[in-house]
């Protein structure tokens, strides 16, 4: 990991067991760096919401500690919560309040004095300014989501949690939401988003944490994960079983199957020269006859599915 000065949120050994015996979080460790966008990727019921609710103080962990900006989220809750804004998954809003009032309310709740200029800027940034006097029940789902983001930003937090910001949102709105997140990230806000869309994690996140059944399975730079995704395999079926791979093929990353009739070539498809032509030529030169060739790619989806299955 990087040096500690960069760590904004430090989640240590967090476990949440409910009275009915269900373990929602199982010894979760996660460090989130200042200014990054991290995506928590996992299927429904993986514990994503529980994890962020625990950081935000809505759920009390059974054991473990969380520090935000070096302060304990339970002991120093006033200071840590001021740094955090939370956009919940459900579109929970009051019905009869106006957009402006509800955003101002949240600002007060988080201990900041009234400041119409700040609220105005937030609403304008989120293209909500012309709706400021509308009652919340008059807004569409997409607009309500924006209002929830505005509320979460009303006290100018350093950290923004977005719980499934694009769940059940159409393509247009999703792109729109991504732009909103990017703009926020540019202002220096650290963003933690949960999603079960791999595409979204790829698109938005600097790092991706995969979570399933209450456990963090891996946390990886998105680019690193993508590099792993570039990894492909070429399966070469041969007509005559080989006793061993000839020495002329030793330059290539090859494995021979147990029945000695299948050669697997591992290569990186994102590489400029994946070496396929050279390999085929070398095979011909070695007088190895092929009966079939296929390639396969491990997608993030595969990695994800495998990880989740392995964890089961």
């Amino acid at each position: 990991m990087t040096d500690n000065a960069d760590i904004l949120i430090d989640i240590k050994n967090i476990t949440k067991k409910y009275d009915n015996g269900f373990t929602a979080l199982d010894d979760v460790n996660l460090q989130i760096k200042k200014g990054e966008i991290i995506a928590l990727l996992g299927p429904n019921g993986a514990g994503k919401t529980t994890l962020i609710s625990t950081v935000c103080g809505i759920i009390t962990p059974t054991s473990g500690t969380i520090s935000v900006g070096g302060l304990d989220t339970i002991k120093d809750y006033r200071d840590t919560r001021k740094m955090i804004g939370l956009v919940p998954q459900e579109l929970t809003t009051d019905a009869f309040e106006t957009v402006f009032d509800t955003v101002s309310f949240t600002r007060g709740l988080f201990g900041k004095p009234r400041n119409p200029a700040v609220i105005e800027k937030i609403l304008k940034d989120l293209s909500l300014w012309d709706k400021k006097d509308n009652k919340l029940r008059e807004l569409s789902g997409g607009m309500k989501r924006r209002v929830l983001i505005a509320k979460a930003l009303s006290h100018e937090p350093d950290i923004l949690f977005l719980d499934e910001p694009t769940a059940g949102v159409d393509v247009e709105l999703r792109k729109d939401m991504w732009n909103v997140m990017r703009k926020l990230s540019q202002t220096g806000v650290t963003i933690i988003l949960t999603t079960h869309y791999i595409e979204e994690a790829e698109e938005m996140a600097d790092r991706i944490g995969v979570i399933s059944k209450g456990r963090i399975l891996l946390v990886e730079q998105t680019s690193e994960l993508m590099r792993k995704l570039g990894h492909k395999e070429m399966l070469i079926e041969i007509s005559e079983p080989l006793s061993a791979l000839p020495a002329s093929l030793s330059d290539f990353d090859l494995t021979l199957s147990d029945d000695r009739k299948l050669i697997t070539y591992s290569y990186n498809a994102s590489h400029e020269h994946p070496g396929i032509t050279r390999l085929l030529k070398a095979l011909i030169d070695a007088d190895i006859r092929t009966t079939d060739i296929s390639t396969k790619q491990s997608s993030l989806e595969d990695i994800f599915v495998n990880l989740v299955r392995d964890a089961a």
Partner: protein
Amino acid sequence: MNIHAISAIYRFEMNRMWRTMGQSIVSPVISTSLYFIVFGAAIGQQMGAIDGVSYGAFLVPGLVMLSLLTQSVSNAAFGIYFPKFTGTIYEILSAPVSAFEIVLGYVGAAATKSLILGIIIMLTATLFVDLKIAHPFWMLFFLVLTAMTFSLLGFIIGIWADGFDQLQIVPLLIITPLTFLGGSFYSIKMLPEFWQTVTLANPVLYLVSGFRWSFYEISDVSPQISIAMILVFLGICTGIVYWIFKTGYRIKS
């Protein structure tokens, strides 16, 4: 102390009252006026004075208490139940506010509403009867403490309630009967001795009796006992609210 949060919650709740003016203010005033017309003017004419106080005037403290109790409970219960119901309570729970500040905001607003209501009812009463207040300080003392105590009780009910029906159950099945049977409309001295004793177990009796004493210096139980009892109720409700936040009962897992 997060003053901004207390004021945000308080203002939010008060706004809700202004929005629902008809429900919050007008309807209790109308129903109280009906009580005055029916019991005070119509039936009251046939009734003798109680301890030298005309029946119409005797009714006033009881009617104020009736509205104060039911409105405090339902206002506060609704105030905290609604965010629980819609889910917006996530915001309160994730905010840098202490339990004390949350209670101060919600209960403070509910109690304020009840006080405004109590005062409006007393003003309405002056249209029908000649109202005099012997001990204004103690009148306010009972008014304020009862509003606070029963707003706290409402808050507890709002946290406990799992549905809108439960929200109605306590005011309807407990508060209203206790108020009616607690000497709001009669002196318990009018009851047979056995029922007088039973009524002593009704907490509302002490509130009505003390409140009425502050107006006319007549009471069913001594005012000192009433003062002690209201403080005991306040203590009990505060204790329960403290326990709720300490354990996260029905609001936090």
